[in-house]
């Protein structure tokens, strides 16, 4: 198991209530791999699991909580700058082009938020119509 995966689990559990399912979704790994990762992290005293009370019906949810050692690990990991960039060079170049384009629109007197809303409406209409066509 990579250090990055451990750090991801700790990041997620430190910032929000996080269960095993959330970790599986986040790491996009086989559930069995995640379960063994969490077990190993518990053995290493990086995390502990706790039961939370639910307001509705059903079994109490098991959440993963980082221990103080886990938080120390996370801080050290962050300091070492070991988290690689997710974006590729081309992705960032694309973002630069988008930013310059937005800047030009503003210079021509357009409201960037108005344009954003128009784009959002188009995107949402496409989503709705593609859902509808899938349903037929």
């Amino acid at each position, binding site marked *: 198991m990579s250090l990055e995966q451990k750090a*991801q689990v700790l*990041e*997620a559990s*430190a*910032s*929000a*209530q996080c269960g095993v399912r959330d970790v599986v979704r*986040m790491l996009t790994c086989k559930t069995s791999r995640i379960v063994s990762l969490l077990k190993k992290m518990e053995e290493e005293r990086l995390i502990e699991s706790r039961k939370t009370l639910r*307001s509705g019906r059903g079994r109490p949810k098991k959440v993963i909580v980082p221990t103080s050692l886990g938080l120390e690990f*996370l*801080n050290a990991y*962050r*300091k070492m*700058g070991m*988290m690689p*960039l*997710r*974006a*590729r*060079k081309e*992705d*960032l170049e*694309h*973002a*630069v082009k*988008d*930013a*310059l*384009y*937005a*800047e030009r*629109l503003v210079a021509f007197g357009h*409201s*960037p*938020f108005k*344009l*954003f*809303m128009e*784009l*959002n*409406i*188009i*995107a*949402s209409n496409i989503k709705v119509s593609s859902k509808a066509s899938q349903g037929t």
Partner: protein
Amino acid sequence: MPAILRSLQRLLKVLEDNGVAYMVIGGYALPFYGRIRATVDIDLAVAISSEEEWNRLCPWLQKNDFEVTISSIQNPLILALDKKENVEIELWLRPDGIVFDGETLRRRRKMKLDENVEAWVVSPEDFIVNKLARPDRGAVDEQDVKSVLVRQESKLDWEYLKKRAREAGILTILQAIQAE
């Protein structure tokens, strides 16, 4: 006016009437500082730190047709579903990387979303920190940050940004994005 803005307008009124400080964060803050891209999520950071404050606000939200899905301030995120407009708004009590202190609130900016809707929007510096401190940070978040760095280059308060980035443990990533 689009449903999402009508919904936001009502929600902001509830927050303002109850004296709850807030700011728009995430994708809806992006067009003011960086690139223009579509997004579904509407995120608000709300300065609520005690159960009493939350319990005071909750009935007002319900009275204004907002159904609150998770009703505890132990959660960093609360979902408010507007039953009138069928719009979901995410209320962040502890937004990633953002320290909700006086300085953060002083730095937020009042922006016009529509002819009749104005809202407080997170500062570009805190926007960057929030994006990079997400536990599920992806390429899109880094692209968003890059676009803000390009558009706001000369306007950013670098001292403040570096201080907040260091505190959130994302200074190295920020520098890597800046260098690319």
